[in-house]
């Protein structure tokens, strides 16, 4: 092969990069020779290569210089050098977004795409489609259609793939090429077949019937391309999921038959599709698992990796189905690819017996330092799952985790370990002390502020209630001395909790607080001063309100209320009760155990759902003056799923009113609904004040209408009510294709299901981290107690779940988890009643022939206590 570069490059010595010290301006200067006649293809080619190389390195080209170079480049179309022409196409594609007026080359490209040189035609089509827009696409439509069915595979493929890219932009134009694509799908060339199938699917994916037909056709006739088979399997499994087709459907048979395909790629795709299907039985999984088992001993690393990763997924749901592969997995533990080894071990951890745990853990620790962080996280998650399965093994795990904690690792990895240790502590009370000790040791040398504050918070919560709280103080105070502001502040809060809980530690804590008041940071000093003063009062109620349980309001809400307060100067002190409450976090989410990496984007503090509603409602003039939004319920469906109109209702509770938000969707494409409102007939003394209709409801665009209801003032115990609802509207028939409505319409109505308002709509969940302290804080002034027999309930869990969902209150102290094999249980619930009164419920449950329940309610308001007891009864 001939050296194409200047002599200078040649002498630069082997291994050096002739492109290394390219200067953008120098290259653009050189590009002037594009204008010389005759064209020197060799030199021009070299310069184009340099330009593309620079673009590739991420060099930024300004619009003017790019446009200049681009226009000079267009002259090179006069040369007939093949490679040069091909590089021109590449330059066009690379510059399509940075240069202006790229459409200037349209005619040259159109000429090449229809010309005689097959080598040009494919790339020319792809370059042309890159610079084309919808209007120009129509001009070249005829050529595209011809190209799709061209007998040269590269031309046909190029046209199909380019069409696919264009679907996003000009669906309506590309849609007209379905017949050509259909013809291309029966091509002999495997890539053409694949691309045609892909394009056909993208054009038809919203039409389930057409997809079904297409699948039937191709599954019967068979395909040549393994890629096309993979695509077909994905389409089939998606269709199966959407139609909730049983596993006796012909589609499932098709996927299963692909397990016997001669291409490994197809076999793996089919196995993976079966494994990922929801609710697959062990029998249906068996053939997929056995092909994956075969792949485990493949010489190709990628195949082993794919197989063991998929088996790992199976093991999460059906550990027993994978036990047959245990032997093969054991062999993979020593695989040179550490990813494979890790996946094998974590799979074995899920399928293996309790006795093999120790051995496997030893195996992992031998190479844990060699694997990437992503897989370390996978290992930690496997351990976390294992701890739930075999609680007795927690001491082995804890040791292992603490060793991992000492090793180097990124934030995600450390966080996974800390989360895992915390969950072990929560599940096994007996492991609490060792766990806390490991975490204390970890924060002694921890560079991640988030983790340090998290652990300090945990120490503050759990530490004071351990047998010897004093030993944690040293670790916490070290943080005050050594760390950054955020950590110091967290440490001060944790210290305060020790002082509040343990009277004998209080003097020493006060001394330490005194020192913290000398801190250089404002926040730390403020906290210390505040806690110091609260602690010196030595009052249980104060401790509970300001140290243990903190504020339960929504932070964005508080910010807004305070801002509002400062805008309108008044004599009245700021009232905390006007601030909307924070919606209690939905019970902890089980961590996903899939070995995919955790999301990259850091979690942003998104405004809560309720804050969004508050925002939306406050823009409607009729709803101003209702005060802060107290609670928004989960949506309630008021229609069946497959009806003409789909309506769901969200109940918004305010201090003295309720707003019902009806989200309506019109699923008829030949109707336009206008002035839509929902008429509500209350069963109790609730008063409907106002209807706000949705002005218009076109096909498939959701709209909302609202109804405002006043709650009865005179009878505070009337908390439940049933509304019968009717949707009223004006119908205008319209053309399903154009959406053009007729001039006149007619009134119509549609009966919805009844809507219930229950006691839960008046109570907001609030988490009290220290229930005992809160219980003392509210005091026994309005305490009432009553005993009920729940005859229909058979187990304690069922009873607990029923009470929680009925009252809509937040379970505290993890009391929603009933320990196994116990006959009695105490449930602690906390919430805030409409109007801002704290409500606490203690329910003692005893199991004997049905469940007996003794309910004690405390609140600052007597009515609230009555309401709760009345509604339970």
């Amino acid at each position: 092969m001939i050296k194409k570069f200047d002599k200078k490059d040649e002498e630069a010595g082997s291994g050096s990069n002739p492109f290394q010290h390219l200067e953008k301006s120098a290259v653009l200067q050189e590009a002037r020779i594009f204008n010389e006649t005759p064209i020197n293809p060799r030199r021009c080619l070299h310069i184009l290569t340099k330009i593309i190389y620079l673009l590739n390195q991420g060099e930024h080209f300004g619009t003017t210089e790019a446009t200049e170079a681009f226009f000079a480049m267009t002259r090179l179309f006069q040369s007939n050098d093949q490679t040069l022409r091909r590089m021109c196409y590449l330059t066009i594609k690379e510059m399509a977004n940075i240069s202006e007026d790229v459409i200037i080359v349209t005619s040259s490209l159109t000429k090449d795409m229809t010309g005689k040189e097959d080598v040009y035609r494919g790339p020319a089509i792809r370059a042309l489609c890159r610079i084309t827009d919808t209007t120009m696409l129509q001009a070249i439509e005829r050529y595209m259609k011809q190209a799709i069915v061209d007998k040269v595979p590269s031309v046909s493929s190029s046209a199909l793939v380019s069409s696919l890219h264009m679907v996003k932009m000009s669906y309506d134009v590309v849609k007209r090429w379905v017949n050509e694509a259909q013809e291309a799908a029966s091509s002999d060339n495997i890539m053409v077949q694949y691309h045609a199938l892909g394009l056909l699917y993208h054009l038809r994916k919203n039409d389930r019937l057409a997809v079904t037909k297409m699948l039937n056709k191709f599954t019967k006739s068979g395909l040549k391309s393994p890629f096309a088979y993979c695509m077909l399997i994905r389409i089939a499994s998606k269709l199966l999921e959407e139609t909730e087709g049983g596993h006796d459907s012909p589609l499932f048979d098709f996927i299963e038959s692909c397990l016997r395909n001669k291409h490994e790629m197809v076999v793996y795709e089919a196995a993976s599709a079966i494994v990922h299907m929801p609710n697959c039985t062990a029998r249906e999984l068996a053939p997929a698992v056995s092909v994956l088992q075969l792949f485990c001993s493949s010489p190709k690393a990628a195949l082993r990796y794919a197989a063991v990763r998929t088996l790992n997924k199976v093991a999460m749901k059906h550990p027993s189905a994978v036990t047959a592969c245990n032997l093969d997995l054991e062999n993979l533990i020593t695989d040179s690819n550490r990813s494979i080894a890790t996946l094998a071990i974590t799979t074995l951890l899920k399928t293996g017996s309790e006795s093999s745990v120790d051995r496997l853990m030893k195996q992992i620790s031998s190479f844990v330092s060699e694997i990437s962080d992503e897989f370390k996280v996978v290992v930690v998650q496997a351990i976390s799952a294992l701890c739930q399965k075999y609680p007795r093994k927690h001491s082995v795990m804890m040791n292992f985790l603490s060793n991992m904690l000492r090793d180097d690792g990124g934030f995600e990895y450390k966080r996974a370990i800390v989360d895992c240790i915390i969950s072990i502590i929560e599940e096994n009370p007996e492991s609490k002390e060792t766990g806390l000790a490991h975490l204390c040791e970890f924060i002694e040398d921890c560079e991640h502020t988030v983790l340090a504050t998290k652990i300090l918070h945990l120490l503050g919560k759990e530490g004071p209630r351990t047998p010897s709280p004093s030993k944690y103080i040293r670790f916490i105070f070290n943080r005050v001395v050594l760390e950054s502001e955020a950590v110091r502040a967290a440490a001060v809060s944790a210290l305060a909790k020790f002082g509040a809980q343990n009277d004998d530690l209080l003097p020493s804590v006060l001394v330490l607080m005194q020192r913290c008041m000398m801190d250089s940071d404002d926040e730390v000093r403020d906290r210390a001063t505040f806690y110091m003063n609260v602690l010196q009062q030595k009052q249980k109620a104060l401790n509970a309100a300001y140290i243990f349980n903190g504020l339960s309001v929504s932070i964005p809400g508080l910010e807004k209320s305070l801002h509002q307060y400062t805008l309108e100067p008044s004599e009245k002190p700021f009232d905390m009760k006007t601030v909307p409450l924070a919606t209690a976090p939905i019970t902890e989410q089980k961590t996903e155990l899939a070995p995919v990496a955790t999301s990259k984007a850091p979690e942003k503090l998104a405004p809560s759902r309720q804050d969004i509603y508050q925002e939306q409602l406050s823009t409607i003039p009729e709803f101003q003056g209702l005060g802060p939004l107290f609670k928004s319920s989960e949506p309630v469906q008021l229609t069946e799923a497959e009806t003409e109109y789909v309506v769901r209702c969200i109940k918004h509770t305010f201090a003295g009113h309720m707003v019902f938000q009806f989200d309506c969707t019109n699923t008829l494409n030949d109707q336009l609904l206008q002035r839509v409102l929902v008429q509500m007939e209350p069963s109790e003394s609730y008063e409907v004040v106002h209807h706000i209709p949705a002005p218009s409801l076109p096909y498939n665009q959701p709209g909302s209408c609202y109804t405002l209801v006043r709650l009865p003032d005179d009878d505070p115990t009337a908390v439940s009510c049933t509304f019968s609802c009717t949707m009223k509207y004006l119908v205008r028939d319209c053309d399903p294709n154009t959406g053009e409505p007729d001039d006149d319409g007619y009134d119509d109505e549609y009966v919805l299901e009844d809507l219930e308002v229950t006691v839960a709509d008046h109570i907001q969940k609030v988490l009290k981290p220290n229930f005992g302290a809160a219980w003392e804080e509210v005091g026994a002034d309005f305490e009432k107690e009553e005993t009920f027999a729940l005859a229909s309930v058979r187990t304690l869990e069922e009873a607990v779940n029923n009470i929680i969902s009925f009252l809509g209150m937040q379970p505290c102290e993890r009391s929603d988890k009933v320990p196994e094999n116990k006959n009695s249980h105490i449930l602690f619930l906390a919430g805030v009643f409409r109007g801002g009164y704290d409500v606490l419920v203690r329910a003692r449950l005893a199991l004997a022939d049905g469940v007996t329940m003794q309910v004690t309610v405390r609140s600052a308001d007597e009515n609230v206590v009555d309401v709760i007891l009345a509604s339970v009864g």
Partner: protein
Amino acid sequence: MDTLILEPSLYTVKAVLIMDNDGERLYAKYYDDTYPTVKEQKAFEKNIFNKTHRTDSEIALLEGLTVVYKSNIDLYFYVIGSSHENELMLMSVLNCLFDSLSQMLRKNVEKRALLENMEGLFLAVDEIVDGGVILESDPQQVVHRVALRGDDVPLTEQTVTQVLQSAKEQIKWSLLR
């Protein structure tokens, strides 16, 4: 995540990368917005290189993406796809790229030879993947379509030194054979 079924799509490849043995980018093509800025791309490349250049194990999971890779002398080839993607499909892209280059460079797959044939590389990748869609997986076809003709430039267009150089090269090759 367990029940997630892939949206059937032809968009398979997220990126194709080639680096040298210092982890410097020789070629990089990203087909979607996973790493929108050059800075993020370089950080990702650095991470990949650090995790892979010491081991010869062909496949890894990094930053939530499946990376298949291959190294030869002083070159590292990477093909990157979603972690839900069929690993064997990505592998077929990698193999096709490597085999095509190997043919074009006459089995001489190393940094120097590659840099001297950058335009060949550009054209080859363009024939293998188009906007993230696998365009061709058969190296024969790719080489055929790239159709790099180095040797048949008319003699009149060459300078004397070039002719001499090419004669030298040809003699060298015939001796080596």
